[in-house]
């Protein structure tokens, strides 16, 4: 699998994204935001976390107009895989590849800790539906919000990829770290559910020495999906 990691000034979770992609066997190229095209043969575009443009104006609001984003949108429309983690998720909602928005955490603090999420949809990045994953979060603005109409569509079309839950898999407000509506931690979009945005950092939970390998399961899944599709 050929992965392109798109970099904007201020993104800072590139090292772990690249490492995890390499761990699952992807060939990784980094693409600077001023490029107008993705490398030929790109299967997966990954936009890592961080603070693109310092989160100034609004998280992801400046990155969305970067020259590379047109190529990313075209890749997504063609059914190519796109993964946005944390700030990457925010950029994908800002540019309209995913619906909704991510706003300030309900408790108004940056929060970094492990949470549990439940796999609530099938899709190319998804481990088996119903599985409970332990993943870290690290964000100040991860409260997912969307209109009732969008939420109904996401739920109806099986596009809510992950929901916050407790250790045993019970989805509920008590396990919701940021006030996201319907406990949404990640959503699918794109013509074939080929675009995934999520606030937790699966790429930081991809080796036993870092506290677990649950995060790697998402990357393994997309490698399998790519293989099955070819």
């Amino acid at each position, binding site marked *: 699998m050929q992965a392109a990691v798109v970099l904007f000034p201020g993104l800072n979770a590139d*090292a772990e994204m690249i*490492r995890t992609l390499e761990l699952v066997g992807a060939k990784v190229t980094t693409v600077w935001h001023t490029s107008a095209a993705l490398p030929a043969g790109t299967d997966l575009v990954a936009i890592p976390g961080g603070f693109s443009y*310092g989160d100034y104006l609004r998280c992801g609001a400046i990155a969305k107009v970067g020259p590379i984003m047109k190529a990313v949108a075209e890749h997504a429309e063609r059914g190519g895989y796109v993964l946005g983690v944390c700030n990457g998720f925010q950029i994908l909602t800002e540019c309209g590849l995913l619906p909704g928005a991510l706003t300030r955490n309900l408790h108004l*603090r940056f929060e970094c*800790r492990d949470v549990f999420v439940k796999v609530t949809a099938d899709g190319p990045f998804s481990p088996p539906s119903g599985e409970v994953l332990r993943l870290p979060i*690290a964000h100040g603005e991860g409260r997912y919000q969307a209109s009732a109409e969008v939420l109904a569509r996401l739920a109806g079309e099986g596009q809510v990829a992950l929901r916050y839950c407790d250790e045993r898999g019970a989805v509920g407000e008590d396990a919701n770290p940021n006030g996201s509506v319907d406990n949404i931690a990640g959503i699918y979009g794109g013509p074939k559910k080929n675009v995934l945005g999520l606030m937790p950092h699966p*790429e930081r939970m991809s080796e036993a020495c870092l506290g677990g390998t649950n995060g790697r399961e998402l990357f393994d899944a997309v490698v399998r999906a790519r293989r099955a599709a070819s």
Partner: protein
Amino acid sequence: MATELDAGRGPSSAGDPTPNFPGDLPITPAVIKQHKLTAEEYGRIEGALGRAPTYTELGVFSVMWSEHCSYKSSRVHLKRLPTKGPRVIQGPGENAGVVDIGDGFAAVFKMESHNHPSFIEPYQGAATGVGGILRDVFTMGARPIAGLNSLRFGRPDHPRTPELLRGVVAGIGGYGNSIGVPTVGGEVQFDPSYDGNILVNAFTCGVARADRIFYGRAAGVGNPILYIGAKTGRDGIHGATMASDEFGEAKEGKGELATASSIKKGVRSTMQVGDPFMGKLLIEACLELFAAGVLEGIQDMGAAGLTSSSVEMAGRADNGLELDLDKIPRRARKMTPYEILLSESQERMLLVAKRGREDEVFAVCKKWDLDCAVVGRVTDTKRWVVTATPGYDPLDGAPPRGEKRVCADIPVASLTDAAPVYDRPRKAAPPRADVAVPDTTDPRADLLALLASPNVGSRAWIWRQYDHIVRGGTVVRPGSDAAVVRVPCERDGAVVMKHLAFAVDCNGRFVELSAEDGAKMAIAEVCRNLVCSGAEPIGVTDCLNFASPEDPGTMDQIARAIDGLGEACRALDVPIVSGNVSLYNETNDAAGRRPILPTPTVAAVGLVREPEDVVTQWFAREGDVVVLLGEGDEALGGSEYQAMKTGQLGGPAPRIDLAAEVRLQRLVLELARAHVLSSAHDAADGGLAVALAECCCTGPSLVGAEIELPATTGSAAGALFGEAPSRVVISTGAAHEADVLARAKAAGVPAKVVGRTTAAGPGATLSIRAGAHRLDVPAADLRGARERCLSGIVGT
């Protein structure tokens, strides 16, 4: 963009500087005093120059001779610290210390204070403290890989404590999280002595190729000086002088020197504002410049900004330097030379490039959208010469009109090596009286109360606001004895994984009771935290926070604490490679002089030989044998128990035996490397009972334990809650018990099996028998008590 100074308009170094630039104030005794210069020091300035200084020069001497920049009160004592060792590549005197970590790589680290700004504006003060120490580290060619911090606040119920705690923590997170360097640990204490003078000490460690360390040296006569990064404004003017001032009654005016423009406009000028995005761009751009090999030297414009960076770089290279202020990028209008030179605007770096390679610097800066300008050149005059065109403001959009003039012309050495050094009078203050402490009548309640104390309980509310896992290398997260970070070290495409451990420590109470012993205990504890995590201590950095050195009692504490630090480092064979001194941490108001507790904070870096050596503090599973290594007296002086029961601080304090400490630490490291430890935890704040409680409840799952403490001659409170140093609680599989005890015996370390771990899970219980007392507490209750320790300050 000009790549050379305009040759035709260059200064003549022969002529005396122009005495009055527009905006300069006349130099009067009052202005001299405002600049914190004594009459005698002013005389020295005239002697160094052979004439009266200009107003600009007065400002420059004021900051360069400030305590913050010159270490004038501490320098004679700092010389006694051990700074050398086989691993040391660079000791104190540079932007950061550098220690060899093998395979051609080096750890680059330093800790620095940002106390005074953080009290005035906690968010920005703390944020810019983090930004400053990050720049000190990456300026040496290192990518920052971990941050820690040491914080001190006033009493928990002081009206400002919640706001200060919230603001400082948010500021540290706001900068560190954005810039993408994990904040992996720290410590915090609350004490009334910090009510009016909090402490914010920030540590950063980076990793560099050992053969590619960059220094703050203006080497190579004729090389261009480049300015990159944020534009210069009026913020932070006289920050360094402010840092050398105590807080007075009128705190609003603290440190604020009257500049012409501040008088006219009524603006406050001493608070810097941080921009972590700009900081991140600077890191990445500088790392590209280092790799490209276009730089001769580099330094952050930190305290005293353009002045100290250019002066120090010239001084270290024994060269001179010319600066053309017309070229300085700025964002405030009508800035005077005085203001430009003393601005502490953040996120600015001063570079010395190799001549002819300026364009490569410009290209990298363009990629990262950074301002870049050639602002001067290296000379052989050993003088620091600054020119500007009076009245010129680049923001007007018109070229300079009129003649460029010299506004400062100063021998470099007079600002650096020949700056005043004081061996200030010392007089030992009478020792604190002993404070009798009632014995415990309900050890269970006392244990839970200690765990719920803001000084002892969980710091999760704090470190959850820090991204402690960014870059995906945090192997041991905050909450254990030390944090451990895995660092991929790359060279020519090959990657070596290094594991580094970090801890920071100081207990000001023990330093107050005995400056020498307390300082020894700080070093011993910070290194003990590393060996308990399976790492060998390889270097220490310090942040010496004290009250006014002009008080002979405080000066005596400073000198004795330095002696204690030095002795402990020598005993443990670990060098001090960098550091910072922050004096005048006291309040003077109607109630009199209130010094902070003497707080020589120390941070240590440890090297893990192999990842399997890493050990964490919490019990791992049921059925392990719990062993207490080391022994100590049961004195309660200086303990949290004493504070809780009496509200006072007094003796008798526990003593430290460095020889015993060395034996203990060697043994713990040996056990970690033999892979026979399930856990290791240093017994510190709150004593042995608190350490055991932490072993039960700080891990991923609760684990119980059945403990019987050795019979004692003293009080039960002393046995349970005394804070004698040099003790470690370990747990080990039953199969390793004999091996562990044999190794302890061979090492000459007292080792007592004190119990076993019991059932894990929600029903886990800690049971301790100490003499006639027995307490049984569910581990869930221990965890609950720890987790509410800050809720009285910041809510739940």
